């Protein structure tokens, strides 16, 4: 295996149905779904009225009124997740040279919710094209520029190294974590606080997915509306949340005797250069990303124990992704469990990739594969083992997480049991 990589030493999660890492893993391994009718705003008049919402009380989560005032919901999620990750890693601010601590936060739509709320105020509910700037709050600029998500996490961690927001749509989470590992691997940082956040359950985002028919309209049965790989799926269910990881160089983690959940050992991105939303059924570009990630990690397909799928719940994705996994893994594809946690926590756009990497780290830690909930009737066109309904014990030495998003982006990341690399 190559030198490229980093150790995951802290995990923090704010997810639908679960604030906190432990609650998150409980939810996923129990196969419970957190999708429900939208409560964050009145969704009457929208076609998809379902979402996977976080029951989030900022004060209970430890945020001060001033923090709540200046931060969009997505930033609040990220800060709470980052604090949990830092505490989990046992990394006190000041323990590491701040200049050697970086931040890489993914987000697809940034601070949309705050931007929309304030838009309504300054435009008289959309009546005016020229708005009234004096009706805006002092913090509106912070909502316009999603870079503030990284700012808040950097301030939380006391980081003064390379800091950025990675915003590649629905692969933002994987790409931000991948970027964090890159910063460590090239020596630009010893520690990177990496993850992603999104809080897109606002009228404009729900409306824009309505307009393209991408989201499920199974409003009558919201709890079972996210149905990846099921013949009765009818689109994805919008989610929200954040996962933040503490990534450390192997040396840094070893030096301080940190507990590692997993090592990230490979990562690659490819684009389909085909269509902003469309996917070709051949899955070739995602397969290419997987193959390159494996090559960089120095592993072969038979070494992969579990595939955490993109599994968004659209027919287009399921075919594309299944083809990609089969192309990249060959025969091994039929022996490896493949599951989508979006069946339980929905699709939180840029955040989901980080939530999935967190799930992969926990899957390795606990040797458990989370299931694909709601998978009652597998689409007959799909022929892999999608782990229906119930979690499974499985020796998870190496897991693969894949993501696919608007813009044509395809990403693949490989995680391994800590120390596996040096044992081989």
């Amino acid at each position, binding site marked *: 295996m190559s030198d490229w990589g980093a150790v995951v030493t802290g995990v923090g999660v704010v997810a639908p149905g679960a604030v906190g890492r432990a609650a998150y893993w409980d939810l996923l391994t129990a196969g419970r779904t957190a999708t429900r009718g939208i409560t964050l705003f009145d969704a009457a*008049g929208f076609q998809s009225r379902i979402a996977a919402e976080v029951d989030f009380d900022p004060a209970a989560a430890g945020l001060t009124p001033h923090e709540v005032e200046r931060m969009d919901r997505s930033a609040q999620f990220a800060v709470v997740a980052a604090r949990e990750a830092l505490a989990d890693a046992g990394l006190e601010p000041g323990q590491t040279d*701040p*200049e050697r601590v970086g*931040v890489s936060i993914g987000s697809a739509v*940034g601070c949309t919710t705050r*931007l929309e709320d*304030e838009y*309504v105020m*300054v*435009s008289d*509910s*959309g009546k005016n*094209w*020229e*708005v*009234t*700037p004096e009706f*805006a709050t*002092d913090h*509106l*600029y912070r909502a*316009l*520029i*999603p*870079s*503030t998500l990284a*700012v808040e996490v*950097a*301030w939380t961690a006391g980081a*003064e*190294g*390379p*800091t*950025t*927001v990675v*915003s*590649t*749509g629905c692969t933002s989470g994987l*790409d931000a974590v991948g*970027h964090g590992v890159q910063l460590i691997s*090239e020596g*630009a940082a010893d520690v990177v606080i990496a993850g992603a956040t999104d809080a897109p359950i606002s*009228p*404009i985002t*729900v*409306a*824009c997915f309505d*307009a*393209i028919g*991408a989201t499920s309209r199974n409003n009558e049965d919201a709890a079972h509306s996210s149905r990846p790989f099921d013949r009765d799926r009818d689109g994805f269910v919008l989610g929200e949340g954040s996962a933040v990881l503490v990534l450390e160089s192997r040396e840094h983690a070893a030096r301080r005797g940190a507990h590692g959940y997993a090592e990230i050992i490979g990562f690659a*991105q*490819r684009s389909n*250069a085909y269509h*902003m*939303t469309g996917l070709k059924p051949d899955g070739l570009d995602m397969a*290419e990303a997987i193959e390159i990630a494996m090559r960089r990690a120095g592993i072969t397909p038979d070494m992969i124990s579990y595939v955490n799928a993109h599994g968004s719940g659209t027919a287009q994705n399921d075919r594309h992704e299944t083809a990609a996994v089969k192309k990249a893994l060959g025969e091994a594809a039929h022996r490896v469990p493949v599951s989508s946690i979006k069946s339980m926590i929905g699709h939180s756009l840029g955040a989901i990739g980080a939530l999935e990497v967190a799930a992969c780290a926990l899957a390795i830690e606990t040797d458990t594969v989370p299931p694909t909930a709601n998978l009652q009737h597998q689409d007959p066109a799909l022929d892999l083992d999608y782990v229906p309904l119930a979690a499974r014990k499985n020796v998870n030495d190496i897991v693969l997480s894949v993501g696919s*998003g*608007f*813009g044509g*982006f395809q990403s693949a990341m490989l995680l391994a049991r800590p120390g596996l690399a040096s044992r081989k």
Partner: protein
Amino acid sequence: MTKNRRTVFSGVSAIAPNGSTTKEFWDATLNGVSGIGPISTFDASGYPVRLAGQVADFAPRDSIDGRLMVQTDRWTQLGLVAAARALEDAEIDPAALDEYDMSVITATSSGGNEFGQREIQKLWDKGARYVGPYQSIAWFYAATTGQISIRHGMKGACGVLVGEQAGGLDALGQARRALVDDATTVVSGGTDAPLGPYALACHVSSRLLTERQDPVRAYRPFDAEADGYVAGEGGAIFILEAEDTVRARDAGPGYGVLAGYAATFDPRPGSGREPGLRRAIVRALADARVDPSEVDVVFADGLGVPEADRAEAEAISAVFGARRVPVTVPKCLVGRLHAGGAPLDVAMALLSIRDSVIPGTPSLGELAPGIDLDVVRETRQATVRTALVLARGFEGFNAAVVIRSV
């Protein structure tokens, strides 16, 4: 591992308020022609800020199909036009290259603002069903990279970085990484177009914009009368290639080399620790293996906010010594272009190397007290072999790149 293969800028395309092509922009800049003027695209009379750096005419319809126009924000159109021109400038035909060897990595600060405002207005004024299908792909931050990748058939590792004004340099840093073993050709840089009515209102809330109404005296980095900046639109897109790739295709030496890059973040407010810009400079110079004495010009960030100007001057002086290096802020002619601003500075650095000239900072009257810099006021002839470009992003981002002659 990034040091053995030099990263060459083989194509440049700038679109700026004082010139919508590279040549027009460069001529205007060398002649001190400003692109800052009263906001003309909407009625800004109710705004405390009335000036902006607007790109007058980059004729997107001449080169972008109507089908692509309707699904893109102006920020993406700027990126598409600039990317196509940069490819042309580098004499690259993407169709002739392996599609997996080409990457697109751009920066944006705020995405598709005007497109988004139109759609959100439809939603709130008329109803959810009036939101069009292209909202889902036009306003989000990845739109420009995605559209450039699709238009030119580029399937390599693509990226989008957001760090306000500093993000434009982070994109170039990422492009250099991609050239290590992901790609042979990278389209990179940044554009932004945040001058719609709502986006500008958002900017106003930062209280960093000047409310002056005289275009010539509005944005005055390092000046004693500096009281904020002017927002602008535009940016620059480059073609970056590994040096051996450029040589192999016999396309001329290129404009210059991305010799060093570093990014840092400021300490938490109130920590009392030193801001991160000096460290970014030191690291970028070290990365480039360049001694401060070798730097011929610094394209400063020049926020035009007194405290920030002083902090930047201190960082520059701490590395180079007081008044030991020429410093220039030609962006006073166009405003701050957010993620497009630093790439535009990089374009100027490359053209300075090519033409042996340093563009000036014509807005400067009296240096503000405590700023001990040799600010280049008028365009001057000078051999430029090494240029340093600095950028800072809102609330703490710092980035620096070192550009050297080939």
